[in-house]
């Protein structure tokens, strides 16, 4: 859909952006800390299986845990040091999950071994997929789904279009923005590797208009490559969602319950492209990522390159700590992120941001009865009827919600944001979905 020249999808909301805090800040590399926790299940799919034992010396980038099956990926050490234990550690959501604890060697220079480039043109599709899996690369947009799964070509549904997600539609977050501004060459290099190997003729890079410097940098880096199209999009949430982005860029709709491949599209985040470029050109597995640390209560908002596994507490300390009024730290963006139960939890492969908020911004406004105004219906990018779903959720009629397609809800939160009566719509829907899944299991 075209709207004054810029493209977008239908419905959605436009929350306050709050990106000024960090959008202009160059990425900095975070100093090494004494201890790292690598969660075995930090990607989508099956948790990895450890291949190291306590007391073992490891070097930066060494394999710690291998993939268990196809929908799983490997895990590598972010530092040189010693494996201290294979025990449990807190996940950002509070649960105690299996993890590998690494003690960094304080005397190590933490340099990378000599680059070991791999020529992607020598690999066939199976080898390419296997290589990406062995490098532990996941989708860097937030869901952390193993990237290689999408690269497996199927003969009946070939990927025709590669879609690169540079929308970053969540408020506060600027990590993808900085990646595109500072590492545009690496992003384009990753795109070329992928497009060459998977023989994809068309590449569309979607970037929201509020990042003109990123658009310019990407256009400059992609100059001369006929395949790559950089498209600026209307600023709207949730444009970074796969299906919304496909709609915005190609004008095509992915059927409910189906994958983007249905319309021949393959969607990847810009950060994933950098990880692919580093894996092939330098032989470096995914052991660090850019994280935006922002919010009103952070001492020194930053865009940091953080080794995966760094405890969140240490990351926040690096950024000047939290001020005393902080009541909540959110991992991810404010719309879909997860409130953290413990700051002992580490940064994960899918951690795009750490945001700190005071009580004044968390106070829930009083909830009123539904006005039937329809703003949630207008906001829902999946074209569901949140008002009806809430009415059913409140009386626990979950089976009827299933008939109203509640399972197609991606929990973007646009409905809750749009509701003038402050009804926690998406929260009620999440509870209902969890209940329905529980019933299925039993």
């Amino acid at each position, binding site marked *: 859909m075209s709207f004054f020249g810029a493209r977008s999808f239908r419905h959605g909301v436009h929350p306050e952006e709050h990106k000024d805090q960090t959008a202009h800040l160059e990425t900095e590399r975070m100093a090494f800390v004494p201890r790292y926790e690598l969660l075995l299940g930090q990607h989508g799919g099956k948790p990895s299986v450890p291949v190291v034992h306590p007391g073992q010396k490891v070097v930066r980038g060494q394999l710690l845990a291998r993939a268990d099956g196809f929908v799983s990926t490997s895990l590598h050490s972010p530092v040189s040091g010693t494996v201290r234990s294979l025990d449990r550690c807190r996940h950002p959501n509070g649960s105690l999950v299996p993890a590998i604890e690494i003690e960094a060697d304080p005397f190590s220079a933490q340099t990378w071994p000599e680059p070991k480039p791999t020529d992607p043109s020598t690999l066939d599709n199976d080898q390419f997929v296997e290589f990406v899996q062995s490098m532990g690369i996941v989708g860097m947009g937030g869901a952390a789904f193993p990237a290689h799964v999408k690269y497996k070509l199927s003969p009946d549904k070939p990927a025709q279009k590669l879609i690169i997600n540079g929308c970053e539609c969540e408020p506060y977050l600027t990590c993808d923005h900085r990646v595109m501004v500072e590492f545009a060459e690496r992003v384009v290099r990753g795109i070329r590797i992928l497009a060459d190997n998977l023989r994809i003729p068309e590449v569309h890079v979607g970037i929201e208009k509020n990042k003109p410097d990123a658009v310019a940098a990407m256009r400059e880096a992609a100059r001369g490559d006929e395949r790559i199209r950089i498209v600026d999009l209307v600023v709207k949430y949730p444009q970074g969602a796969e299906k919304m982005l496909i709609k915005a860029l190609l004008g095509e709709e992915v059927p409910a319950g189906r994958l983007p491949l249905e319309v021949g599209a393959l969607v990847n985040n810009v950060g994933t492209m950098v990880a692919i470029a580093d894996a092939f050109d330098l032989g470096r597995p995914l052991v660090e990522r850019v994280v935006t640390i922002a919010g009103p209560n952070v001492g020194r908002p930053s865009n940091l390159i953080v080794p995966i596994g760094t405890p969140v507490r240490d990351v926040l300390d690096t950024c000047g700590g939290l001020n005393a009024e902080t009541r909540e730290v959110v991992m991810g963006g404010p719309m879909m992120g997860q409130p953290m139960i*413990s700051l002992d939890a580490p940064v994960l492969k899918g951690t795009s941001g750490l945001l700190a908020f005071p009580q004044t911004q968390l106070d829930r406004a009083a909830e009123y009865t539904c006005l039937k105004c329809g703003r949630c219906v207008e906001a829902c990018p999946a074209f569901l009827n949140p008002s009806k779903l809430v009415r059913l959720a409140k009386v626990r009629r979950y089976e009827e919600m299933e008939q109203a397609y509640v399972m197609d809800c991606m929990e973007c939160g646009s409905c809750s944001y749009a509701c003038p009566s402050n009804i926690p719509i998406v929260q009620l829907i999440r509870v209902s979905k969890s*209940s329905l899944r*529980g*019933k299925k299991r039993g």
Partner: protein
Amino acid sequence: MENVLVAATIMAGLGFSLAGLLALAHRFLHVEEDPRLDEAEARLPGSNCGACGEPGCRAFAEKLIAGEAAPSGCTVSSPDAIEGLAAFLGVDPGQAEKNVARLHCGGGLAQAHQIAEYVGQSNCRAAHVVGGGGKGCSWGCLGLADCEVSCDFGAIHMNSNGLPVVDVALCTACGDCVDACPRDLFTIEPLAHALVVQCAAPLEGDAARAVCSAACDACGKCALDAAPGLIEMRDGLPHIDYSAGGPASPEATLRCPTGSIRWVPAGQFEEERDRLAKDSMTLSSPPAGGFHV
């Protein structure tokens, strides 16, 4: 006017002829039903809870008449009602083992360590979705009473320690609380199986004690003290197998350092209630019916 009369006549004719068809169908396609079925169903409680294993009271009544179930299979009926039903049908009431819902967590507000404050919808499922309330233990009871709400018989009440107390007299073992608990902490057990493990955390040693003072730290003393084969330590928790082992006794619980395995002849958390009563603390919702059985 004529049109109206024609329409009325046609409708009346249709009505009568269809009624005639129904009357014939009733006469010739009539299904002979046991006359006792309605009476038997009337004698059942009519709660359609499903605890007997049948989809509802009528289905259970059919099984009764067919002799495939005994009246005592209904766990909701009072002993008198079961006697009456058995006498009516002229069958033996049968012996049913009394089953109750058991909670496998003893980590109330006083035992489980809090590491965060949960603000949000006040139900367990919602807390579970955003990471599990504020307790440091990610296996334990969330304490927001989804089970209490789900119980059709009013057999579950939250005590002041934030744990659900099952009134064994009222519990019909229907299993609604088992489905309601997002952490799967309830199981239906025979009341006679008095050894109850009140912990679900697979943690061991200090790691377990770090999250809850009532957590099983997997020391294994209960397994050593019990009859051989009765208790097996698996995944950091004792597993009790009544079919394999010898007789169960309170011996197994005596050396438990955290009190996570209990000898519970009746309702759970009774000592808790006594202690709270002694401290003259008021219960936020006093358990109805008491703990007599």
